[in-house]
């Protein structure tokens, strides 16, 4: 049953939303590149396995690097690692956000006011300088995992406000009162009754989290503050800069990770755009009438 609903939703999105069509196609391409990394003929840290600094050719689609690595296979590793870092960061950040949103939204009153004003302050604080400070202190010890943790810890304030608003409105609904009167405790009400309503919002929001995390991964790496031995979109750009790829006219070394990062963020954004449009009750209404007209036309 749930599967059918999901399939119908995806079909609807594909039919009515141009941005979903393009976005999902881009994400599928990115996904294929990610999967290809598992079939790479080289390890991600293999050096001097191919001729160095060769421009793109039939043998090396994206050229080779100064370390004698194949640009294409290196890129697949980079995409995998960047998506892993940002995926983990999104998971951590959204978990914190859901918890904070649930607590403030459900309890309300004084607790809500205190926590909400702290959250409002955290939103205003610029995160990049803070990130740089922490990363600079951890320099050398930064791993893929700790970067993901760091990004996750810093990205929950904004989404938690949206979840709070959602829970606030759910709390006033009749089924909440029914649940409370029938003796359900608060944790159960929130987790079993309210959480399912949050999931669509969470999906659209997770994509926005990906955008931020990818941007920060790239930024910190270009500043030389992440684990530079692990290939990621950011570290590929860092090493390209480090070896003066532009001045030496080896454009392909920088162009590949930059193009990949653009593909990734645009793909994610287009999908999130179509999802939030889909979740917007106003557009849903107009879509319903359009759907009825189409069905009516068929019947007639």
């Amino acid at each position: 049953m749930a599967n059918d609903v999901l399939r119908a939703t995806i079909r609807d999105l594909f039919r009515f939303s141009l941005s979903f069509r393009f976005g999902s196609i881009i994400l599928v391409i990115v996904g294929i590149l990610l999967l290809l990394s598992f079939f790479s003929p080289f390890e991600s840290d293999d050096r001097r396995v191919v001729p160095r600094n060769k421009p793109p050719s039939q043998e090396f689609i994206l050229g080779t690097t100064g370390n004698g690595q194949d640009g294409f296979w290196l890129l697949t590793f980079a995409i995998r690692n960047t998506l892993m870092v940002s995926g983990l960061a999104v998971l951590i950040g959204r978990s914190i956000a859901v918890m904070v949103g649930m607590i403030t939204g459900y309890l309300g009153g004084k607790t809500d006011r205190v926590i909400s004003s702290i959250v409002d302050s955290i939103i205003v604080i610029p995160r990049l300088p803070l990130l740089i400070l922490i990363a600079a202190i951890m320099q050398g010890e930064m791993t893929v995992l700790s970067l993901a943790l760091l990004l996750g810890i810093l990205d929950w304030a904004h989404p938690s406000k949206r979840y709070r608003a959602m829970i606030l409105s759910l709390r006033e609904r009749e089924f909440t009162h029914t649940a409370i009167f029938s003796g359900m405790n608060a944790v159960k009400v929130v987790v079993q009754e309210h959480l399912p309503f949050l999931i669509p919002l969470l999906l659209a929001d997770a994509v926005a989290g990906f955008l931020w995390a990818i941007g920060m991964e790239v930024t910190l790496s270009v500043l030389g503050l992440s684990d530079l031995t692990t290939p990621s979109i950011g570290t590929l750009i860092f090493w390209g800069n480090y070896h003066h790829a532009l001045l030496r006219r080896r454009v392909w070394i920088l162009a590949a990770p930059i193009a990949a990062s653009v593909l990734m963020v645009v793909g994610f954004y287009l999908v999130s755009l179509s999802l939030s449009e889909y979740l917007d009750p106003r557009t849903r209404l107009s879509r319903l009438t359009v759907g009825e007209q189409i069905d009516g036309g068929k019947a007639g």
Partner: protein
Amino acid sequence: MNLLRTYILPRILQWALVIFVGISATFLIPRLSPINPVDEMIGRMTAFASIDPHAVVSMRESATALFGLEGTLLEQYGRFWARLFTGDLGVSFGNFPRPVSDIIAAGLPWTIGLLSVAILISWVSGVFLGALAGYFHDRRWAQVLERFVVVVYPIPYLIIAFVLIFVFAWWLKWFPLVGGSRGQPGLTWDYISTLLYFGFLPALSLVIGSTAFRFIMAKSLTTTEIASDYVQYAELAAVPKRKIILFYVARNTMLPQVTDLALSLGALFEGALITEVLFAYPGLGFVLYNAIYNADYNIIMGITLLSIAGIATASLLIDLLYPIFDPRVRLR
């Protein structure tokens, strides 16, 4: 009087809270990390030379004092605030013994200049282009513009700046690769023209990203606005379209955009930092980059603290000016 109690006072309290939370976080987070900056520094210094153990001990003591790591956490916290109130951010390790506040003050005007120009241009053009595209949403050009914006918006500032450097500075060679100005500083046309010449690409990279953001918001605000009765009435009354868009629709969409500007200042500031790094523009971003390279924690710390206080204060000022634009807040 009512305005003061219901609007201004809570907002100032909020500002104080932001600064308190932000500065406490900046104090606490480095101390929670398992790495001790003193050990790091001594490790770097003794890596290439053997030093007398007694010297290492006294070095450790002075470094601990320098980082403000003496005593219990609470004592450190108290001293941290005391030093901040006197404007003392410590000395730079990279440029010993130049005070951090000096180095930051040298970079600050560049960043503020770049940022304010970029914010002004992107806010105005985003609001008006968004209003136009929202009003004429069924025109071909509006749809093309929107698709372009939707693709540009999610791209990080860093990538936009990279592409600009690649195309306009490296390939076409229209603009310089690095730097902020040339020649003797002064109010001469020669100097100001180099300022514009060097600042153009960094500002453009910021303007592109933030205009896209404003545009998307302005367009969706406009879409709701043009469905309202007064717009339909104006159209029926044959009020010129130019007037409807500029004086009715755009004006009404500006209010939420002012509030949102206060919220997005942080993101814009982050964009400016990155842009300055890539263009080697002599503002705070470039200072920060050099500090990272030299492991100059005091400077990184100083810039973090300053940016938190600066962004919080700037957004407070915008919010305090808000009643001037919005009579509803004024008369509440």
